[in-house]
């Protein structure tokens, strides 16, 4: 498999893989903060949220240059998937800013 094709295939799932990792991280931080009573719990969560959104923005706004028919089509689908992942990241984790952390 050529390098460009491999990257196109990976970029198709890149955004949502980051989203999944972020999901686990935020859910884990939420649980740990409650278990150990962190005083800066919400600040930590909002910071993690910010980092996650920033990382998700990279593949969403920085499309790959592609060569070849297959990877060109893949790249378009990948761009949309990565933008969907960014949207999902912004919306799903927005509650860290206002919902109650441990009740």
């Amino acid at each position, binding site marked *: 498999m050529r390098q460009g094709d491999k990257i196109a295939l990976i970029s198709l799932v890149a955004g949502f893989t980051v989203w999944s990792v972020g999901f686990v991280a935020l859910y884990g931080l939420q649980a740990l903060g409650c278990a150990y009573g962190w005083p800066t719990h919400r600040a930590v969560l909002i910071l993690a949220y910010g980092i996650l959104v920033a990382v998700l923005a990279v593949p969403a706004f920085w499309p790959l240059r592609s060569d070849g028919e297959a990877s060109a089509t893949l790249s378009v689908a990948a761009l949309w998937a990565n933008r969907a992942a960014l949207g999902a990241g912004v*919306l799903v984790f927005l*509650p860290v800013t*206002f*919902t*109650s952390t441990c*009740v």
Partner: protein
Amino acid sequence: MLAGAAVLTALVLALLTMAYLRPHRLAGVTAGQWIVGGGLILPIPILMLLTGTALVLGEQLLPRGEVAYRAEARAEQWAWRFSYPDVPGLPVSETLHIPAGEPVDIAVTSADVIHAFWVPRLGGKIDAIPGHRNVIRLQADEPGIYRGICAEFCGPGHETMQFRVEAHDLETFKSMMAGAAP
């Protein structure tokens, strides 16, 4: 929510019918318009509004801070036992007494398997899980008798695991609790 769902369902089905019966009216709609319009622009604002409202509402329902009245509900196969931490002398009973018009925190626990505490007319439910203690805040607006059931399958006596909630006006409730106290 119900009406909105009905309208959206009707819209989807109307478009589908039109695709068959009046195809020329939809022929001008491009692929991008179908997908962006129907798949993104239509649902996203609705879902954001709905989820946002639900989360704000959910925040208000949380048992945060202290309330004046508390009760304990302990589930076992296949009965509920209610007691009152502020009135330790009261015998454990299978009927829950609460004051009407006041929020009450009910701490729900289980002695064996998982059950769920549910009084349909008073609001939501909460699971009774061995090893965990979950609190639900309920309020009966009117005095009366409310029926409660176990909502989580808990074995062959599941459907028999019902209980009564009696909501009294505040004065009666206070005197009941006081009369029972040692």
